[in-house]
């Protein structure tokens, strides 16, 4: 889990937590929204991924203060943010390279 490149569901989970902390259901819905309905995670899959990300110290778990139900929420750790940034840089490089190569072929 803690190795790059990331799988798409894991990348989407991390992106969901990049902006703000979220609880489980919000992550599920955010992942679905971000992928335009292409990636629909089951709850079992989501919590398997969250567990591995917790173990690898990419995210942390805390009790939501403002929630009346006192739900558990998740947020990125500094290590998780750093690794996400690395993955984004890797993807940017790939996209740039792909565009160049395709343009070269067309010309």
């Amino acid at each position: 889990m803690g190795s790059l490149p990331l799988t798409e569901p894991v990348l989407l989970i991390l992106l969901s937590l990049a902006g703000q902390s979220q609880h489980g259901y919000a992550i599920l819905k955010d992942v679905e929204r971000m992928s335009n309905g292409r990636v629909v995670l089951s709850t079992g899959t989501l919590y398997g991924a969250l567990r591995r990300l917790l173990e690898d110290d990419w995210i942390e778990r805390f009790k939501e203060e403002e929630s009346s139900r006192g739900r558990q929420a998740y947020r990125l750790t500094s290590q998780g943010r750093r690794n996400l940034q690395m993955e984004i840089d890797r993807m940017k490089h790939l996209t740039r390279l792909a565009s160049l190569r395709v343009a070269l072929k067309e010309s």
Partner: protein
Amino acid sequence: MLSLYRKLLRLYPAEHRQLFGEEILTVLAEEREAGDRRIIAQARLLTRETAGLVVGAIREHLRVPVEIQAGLSAVSRRFAMRNGFRFPKSTIVFMGLILGGVLTAIKKGEDIATSVPHDIGPVTPVHIQPVHSILLGGMPLFFAFFYAAGLIGWAILFAFRRSGVHRLADISGEQK
């Protein structure tokens, strides 16, 4: 539906259930409340979540038992057979090479046998089992032996993993 999910959660290791059990049920309940009420949509949701829970439980059982403390991990990977564990690709290449070697040896043996002149006079018939039949007969045994050896090795590693012996290495490491 929730009672079914609750039953399926029993398939998970106790540690995972204690940590995430109630949270998973809350998410499932929220999903059900917010979801489409049509029967087809409900059936799709039920199928997806049931499969997700069963597969998730299997994956968790195959994982290293570790303690999670709010995102803090102090896990030694020394004996960890993680989900990503696969036989090295080189194993397949070596097996292919061995098989190729055996087949070449059989072919060579047959070539030699045909090149030897047969008109050397009457010979008392002696029943000799052909080389290739010995080799082919032995091959399943050969593979069965290595398969069994691999299985035993895996079982030992699995037993180490389940016993938590790798944590002892952590303790001694911390004391230094």
